[in-house]
């Protein structure tokens, strides 16, 4: 099973279109509300982003973010509540700290911390959500492709 899954992933990766793809982890109490509001307002956004709703940004594992990048997804956005505005008493603080450290790691390797967008408490209005997503698409568009890290076939032949 394991091998099967991971392989399908490679296939998925290969049919990927050139426009960057974004995975959004939206906290139910901020990001998701923003996303929903954007929907209600029928603002038009590029289609290549997917939202996974979570109870709290604290539930987003850094490993999941890396897994997403490894799966050929160009950028990951984590939308949570304000510092102090967390519905789970500061649960989001630790996650902010983690993700910013992860940005460091991504910068170290040249993948670029830019691929991880953190927005805490600023996405709970439709226009904020719209703005964040659109800007993120633009930012990713100019980043070098992740390919050297995905399919290691960089040889003359």
């Amino acid at each position: 099973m394991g091998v099967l899954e991971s392989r399908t992933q490679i296939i998925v990766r290969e049919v990927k279109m050139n426009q960057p793809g974004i995975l959004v982890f939206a906290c139910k109490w901020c990001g998701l509300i923003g996303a929903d509001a954007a929907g209600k307002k029928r603002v038009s956004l590029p289609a290549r982003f997917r939202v996974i709703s979570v109870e709290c940004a604290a539930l987003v594992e850094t490993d999941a973010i890396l897994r997403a990048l490894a799966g050929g997804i160009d950028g990951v956005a984590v939308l949570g509540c304000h510092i102090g505005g967390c519905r789970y008493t500061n649960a989001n603080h630790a996650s902010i700290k983690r993700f910013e450290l992860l940005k460091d790691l991504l910068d170290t390797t040249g993948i670029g911390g830019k691929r991880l967008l953190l927005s805490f408490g600023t996405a709970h209005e439709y226009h904020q959500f719209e703005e964040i997503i659109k800007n993120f698409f633009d930012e990713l568009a100019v980043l070098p492709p992740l390919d050297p890290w995905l399919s290691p076939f960089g040889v003359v032949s």
Partner: protein
Amino acid sequence: MANIVVFLCRCFGEIDNTIDFDLLRKELSKDTSVSSLSIVDSLCLETDIEKAAFKINESKADRVLIAACSILSRGNLPVNGLIKEGMERHKIGLVDIREGCAWIHNNDSDGAVKKAKDLLNMGISALQHKEKSEDMSVTVHPDALIIGAGPAGLAAAASLAKTGFKVNILERANAPGGMLRLISQLYPTGEDAANKLNPYIDEVENNPLITLYPQSKIVSIEGYVGNFTVQFASQGKDNSIQSGIIIIATGAKIFFPTGLYRYGEIRNVITQMEIERQFLKGSFDVKKTVFIQCAGARNEERPYCSTICCPASLKNAMRLAEEDPGSEVFILHRGIMTPGNVLEKYYRDALSRGIQFIRFEEERPPRIMGDDHVESVEVYDAVNGITRKIETDLVVLSTPLVPNDDNARLAQMLGIEVDRYGFLSEIYPMHPLETKMDGVLICGSARWPVASDQAILQGKAAAMKAVSYLRQSEIAASTLSRVPGPKSGHARVVPDFCTGCGNCVAACPFDACHLEKTKGRYISKVDMMRCKACGNCVSVCPNGSMQIPEHNYRMVGEMIKWAF
């Protein structure tokens, strides 16, 4: 192989022009885990849900995926509806193809369809791995415990007793009444404090439901909402009581401004509390009195406003003026704080009574002149920009209330928090009087300096919140949600995998995790009554032995895999 029923909601054709449902049907029909797929006009009406439920039973499906509008608009209706029909929450998946897809990509149909397909795949794969958390419930001990027999505590006790619950009160002093016993009259009514206090004291003494433990000191507090066990010593005897909830009404402490304005150095520089005592003793004659506000408050060390000092000074100033119409009373202040219509009128009365108000600045505080006793006060009048010398024979300092010294200890025992000044703090947002621990309520000056009427009000309010716990015979952990709707689950440890590193313990905002040593190694245990399923423990767990079944890592992995 899973057997999933999928419903695609067209929202009455609302999103047809963006999303090609036949294409979706074709795509999904390849998926072997989908047993049946139906495209419906709507899912949010009673009848739709009944139909859906029937279809599910008919096809013996073990999971159902709904693709409709977002959970925040009407998506929750079919979900809750099906739950009512007897389906388990973790077996229902909801995919938002309206707000989250059709409406925001109406100019890119292809993209939208691709997205819808991916979202559905994500939903299906996630659904297959979704699990259900364990739950637990405690039988609620019907007694209430109140710590502190001040106005807040007494009021809470009285109203709880009125609703028929047994109440135990722990009081540090040897008699109930708290700070109110030190005060002669109350602002703005001027009625005797005793009149206000006595009915409560009578209630405590005579109501068989209420037991007061004077001179008590708390040793330990254990347990959680529904069943706390409190060890304490009262009048030298060790004692232990159980209770369903705990109301903290420990009040605050009076601040003695030693060193400020030469207090304690020369005669006739006293505090509000001392003048109150004087009044209790009887009147005394002073010709000229100067009140100085914010003595030790609204400064570097104590940036907060104690809120009760200004009205108190007004009260006492007017009383002096009444008792001796010839006397002069000055109030030196940094802005009089009298919020609300009643207190503002109180202030205007004082003005009309000839009380003189002089505003000074923090940087240039009044100076007390005189050798062994006060002769005059020198103050820079910030309004008129002149320095004035006021002859006086009494200076009264308005000092703030400060937190009790043992607040921290108490908070630690209860697993709640204190704010940056040391007052007990409630949780943000929108949960007045409630603390991080369910079933632990705070009221009165323990949470913030308040006047007696406010304290009493909060006491009663706390009592009502307490009742909402106590009237249940059992409390299920899953109901103790801090957010709208039920808890999303509980964290679960796989004991064999847990390395006992303690990350979860350090990260949990609700102190729900703790380590237990078994066979020489530590293993994390989750206290479900405290766990709020925020997931912090999950994401700091180095090897995934901590999981929230409703949102486990396999689910996440699958969703990521199918995202594009």
